[in-house]
């Protein structure tokens, strides 16, 4: 198969966009998946609760 410059440019312009959209959807699903909420909340607070506090 002969890969020309034109083909590559076209791939970049089309599949690049699909990839962008698909990727964004995955990230959004992960972020707002209800079951993840609890883990995120725990992560958010854990670093404050269980570790040494700053000395001011």
């Amino acid at each position: 198969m002969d890969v020309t410059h034109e083909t590559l440019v076209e791939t970049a312009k089309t599949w690049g966009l699909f990839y962008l959209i698909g990727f964004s959807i995955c990230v959004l699903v992960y972020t707002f998946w209800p079951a993840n909420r609890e883990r995120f909340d725990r992560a958010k607070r854990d670093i404050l609760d269980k570790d040494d506090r700053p000395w001011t």
Partner: protein
Amino acid sequence: MGQLTTRERDVAAAILIVLAIIGIAMAVAGRADPLGVHGAIVLLYSMALMYLIMSTSFGPAPDPSRISRYYDDPIKVGVWFTLFWAIFGMFIGVWAAAQLAWPSLNFDTAWASFGRIRPAHTTGVIFGFGGNALIATSFHVVQRTSRARLADQVSPWFVLFGYNLFCILAVTGYFMGVTQSKEYAEAEWYADLWLVIVWVTYFVLYIRTLARRREPHIYVANWYYMAFIVVVAILHIVNNLTVPVSLGHAKSYTIWAGVQDSMVQWWYGHNAVAFFLTAGFLAMLYYYLPKRAERPIFSYRLSILSFWGITFFYMWAGSHHLHYTALPHWVQNLGMTFSVMLLVPSWASAGNALLTLNGAWHKVRDDATLRFIMMAAFFYGLSTFEGSFLAVRPVNSLSHYTDWTVGHVHAGALGWVALITYGSLYTLVPAIWKRERMYSAALVEVHFWLAFAGTLIYVFAMWNSGVIQGLMWRTYTEEGTLSYSFVDSLVAMYPYYIARAFGGLLFLIGAVVATYNIWMTVRGAPVVSGERHDDLPLAAPVPEGAATSPAE
């Protein structure tokens, strides 16, 4: 290094012997070349470290309970490296700035001329100061957020000292004229190869430490550190593919040519900004900001979204460094589009940081350390906006090749990177040296105002000079000829070059104050009494009788 067992010392010694042999080989093969000098430096460096190991090898065996504590010794050494490179890199920067106003300041020597010390400045601050700060803080954050000790005893030292050997080879090379001329990747092939080894070790150590955590979720700061480690490795390898003239030559020729090389170079250059100077420092932001403010981050979900946004968008944006050049038009437009889109995740991060502080502004007022972090987030928002703006083609036609770019870079480097680093250091230092507080809160305050004033003076000087320069170059007379010669525009720059050097000097003085303050903290500030039972790792095997509180 008091925590190393005899066996671990043997491993370290073996590594150093191999390194010394490499040094000798380089010195012999490159005896007619700067490579030989670097061989000697490698040899001396490994001998010095060998002496350090030997001189303590007959001390008492390490305390077995050390395994149940965090491994903070490498972090402490990393902090000193950070402070050293900050002063070195910023001093060279001020010197280079002064040379632009007073060109005779190179004292007619080759090694001190502008073209050679300029990369010494950029490498000194980016890789020396920034890189050591990233390594030191990442060792701290990964242990605390995973509640686990570093996974290995020797490799943290290897990473730290190996990385600094890279920095030394790079910077001494520039003084001798050894450079690839690729901006922000000037170090030659052998230093680059060495960095790959160091970086892989760093990666393995980081992953292994994360694997020791109990909590299934990885805290978001570690995501940023991991993106920093992984992507910098990819960028570094691709951009530095070269063929050396011979094994006895420091000089090499990159495999990329012309337009391809320009794209690879700025793909690297722009993503070095993204993953070295942004991702890693955002990791600091997401850990040290909540810690210092004693408030959880405003929105954890927002931090995840901006993480993937930054990881994804940045890679496309590099070509905005090449507007109106021989690079194909569509690549330029792609770069411009993604640069503008990049503003969304960038401002999400900056906004997230500032909203975290909402409701705690009295702390920002009273605590200069928190103010460092707050101001860093502010400058991050400012310079990412400016970055997207400058990436728009018509704006770029004016700003490119001028001091405006330099101003933009320093709004990011001084305002964002350096301020967040010092904010993190002022939080980190008392924590790992078990001090109640910094030696002097007043000196932190002094440092803050020096740094802030220095940044403002610098950035405003460069904005002014850049815009003036850009406009003078394109101004036409009524007859349709160019109004100004190039020299006219240069003459107009001198006042700003002097102002810029002054702003940089203020920032440098601030760095010296910080170093003094940290030095005195380590030497003298009151020690926290008793062991903190909440500052122990969980995953490690706990010796009989040691008091720890297991998770849940």
